[in-house]
């Protein structure tokens, strides 16, 4: 195919134009976070820092280190647990279907789409009653439960691709539920686990509504709440929130950069059919 040169030029022009627009916020974060407070004047906002100032990151680290730690303590167990449960559920719902299992799956999926505001008040009361309000364990529980629909969905679709004959052969050989899982299903689950783990990691790390409702005012607030508290105040010193934003964004951004392929797969799975 021969293409007219103008066309090619136009395509690259449009693409580069949007690349600049898409990178503007990133540029802004970086230059602002490397400026000293007295350099942050509205009129010079787009200029590079001069001199480069690193103190903001030290300060932001001091401010946010406990919250980053909270986020890590939350995200690791919650992600692992919801991946394991999702894998088991997906295995049952694709290879051990029973009467009504499709309806139950549908009812489960609905939980993925509800506005969480509609369960927030009873959730808050429930956690309060069982003594988990304000704790990281409480948040872990919440994220595992409300992560069940998506993790189950991803694994169910993933296992649907596994030929039923493989399972049947296992059954004929006398292998039971767990043996088939551990010998046949689990060993080929790695890509599914990667997709689910990346998805849940990103979601939970970035989550705000549960975190602000269930841990505000305690020492257990994740990074998103802490960042909002700092940036939401009046008369903000913008170098600090920007440095904090960079820190808050870094883990998910790195995952995206290095495992983007799987990230996109999770993204596409979110639209039910995938």
């Amino acid at each position, binding site marked *: 195919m021969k*293409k007219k040169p103008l066309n090619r030029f136009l395509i690259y022009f*449009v*693409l580069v134009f*949007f*690349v600049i627009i898409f*990178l*503007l*916020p990133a540029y*802004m*974060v970086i230059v602002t976070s490397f400026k000293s407070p007295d350099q942050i004047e509205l*009129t010079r*906002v787009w200029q590079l820092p001069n001199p480069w100032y690193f103190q903001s990151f030290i300060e932001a680290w001091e401010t946010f280190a406990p919250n980053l730690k909270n986020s890590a303590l939350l995200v690791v167990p919650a992600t692992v647990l919801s991946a394991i449960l999702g894998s*088991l559920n997906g295995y*049952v719902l694709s290879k051990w279907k029973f009467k009504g299992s*499709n309806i*139950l799956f*549908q*009812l489960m*999926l609905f*939980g993925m*789409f*509800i*506005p969480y*505001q*509609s*369960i*927030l008040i009873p*959730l*808050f009361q*429930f956690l309060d009653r069982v003594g988990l309000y304000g704790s990281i364990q409480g948040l872990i529980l*919440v994220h595992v*439960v*409300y992560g*069940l*629909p998506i993790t189950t969905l991803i694994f169910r679709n993933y296992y649907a691709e596994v030929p039923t004959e493989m399972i049947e052969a296992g059954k004929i050989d006398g292998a*039971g*539920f767990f043996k088939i899982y551990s010998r046949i299903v689990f060993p080929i689950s790695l890509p599914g686990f990667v997709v689910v783990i990346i998805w849940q990691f*990103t979601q939970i*790390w*970035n*989550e*705000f*509504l549960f975190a602000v*409702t269930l841990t505000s005012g305690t020492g257990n607030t994740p990074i998103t709440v802490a960042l*909002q508290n700092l*940036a*939401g105040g009046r008369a903000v010193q913008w170098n600090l929130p*920007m440095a*904090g*934003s960079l820190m*808050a*964004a870094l883990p*998910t951004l790195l995952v995206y*950069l290095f495992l*983007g392929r799987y990230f996109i797969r999770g*993204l*596409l799975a979110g*639209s*039910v*059919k995938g």
Partner: protein
Amino acid sequence: MNIKKIALKRDQMIAFLMILPSLILIGLFVYGFIFQTAWSSFTDWEGVAAGIEKNFIGFENYKNLFTKLLDIRFRQSLVNTLFFTVFFIAGCLSLGLLFAILLDQNIRFEGVFRLIFLYPMSLSFIVSGTVWRWLLNPKGGINLLPTLFGLDPLEIKWLTDRTQIWQFDWIALPKYLGYLLLALMIFLAIRNFRAGKKWGSAIMALIGIATLIWLLSGKADQILILDYPEPHGFNLALIGIVLAAVWQMSGYMMAMYIAGIRGVPDELREAARVDGASEIKIYRDIILPMLRPITLSAMIVLGHISLKIFDLIFVMVGPDNATTDVPGVLMFLTAFRGNQFAKGAAIAMVMLLIVAFVIVPYLVNTLRTEHEL
């Protein structure tokens, strides 16, 4: 053989037991809690302190939300959500499609472009909201971009703008809902008719005609749900939030469309080229129609994100900014800052109903076609 059958039955039992905890958790945390919220929304419950009474008051909270003078903020928040959703979806769809088509042209560095258009998706709304709030500072940020080229700065007020356009009067809401019903019925009647469902089509047409008569008879104009006019419209302050949201989510649409375009068989394109079809024609007549199911499911996903949006707006404008309120923010403030739990529950139920209205037909539809396959 018999032993094997028993073993299979036992394994089926184990399978059920393995999924049971998840089912119970979802049953309690999703359906049980929704039920509890629904119940609370029919009471006058305020505050969490011990000894607070909870009396059943029927639909009072809902009635107040839609008609009480004090609750004007809720009505504006619904209108905001409507406009936000329309512009957000339109923005994401068009940018996503544009990127996908451009990147389909054997572009150099295609991977790099894709990476850049999609990176905002990996960020938290809190991070992007913080950054955009700084970018949309009326005296800095985006407004100063033209000065880099020696031009005058822009004077857009962004999030602090208080202008409202496209106003309509809430007092006449029943009439507007009538028009909406009419349009919906016409659409459904035509769709059923095309699908060969004569009866369904006839019923929809009948409801449509009844609505039309009701509207034309002037009866609709007589139902006034308020005692005074109450204009609501599109708050220009929302534009900045739409910008940030589109920046964050249009990469998702691009990924969806790229996957869709990849799914179009190359032979189909080649055949069209051999027939002398231009590239534009191939897109218009072959590829775009094949992308329609993707557009639909993406609209559902984006739509439900937008209907329940909370964090982005909360962090961009803070809790005290009524002009850009959406129900998600208002519910949080009402219940958890104002201790008005019953009213918060009612707002949450309205949100749930709106989302369910979009999601349930979609879920039922998707899973039905899955069974047919």
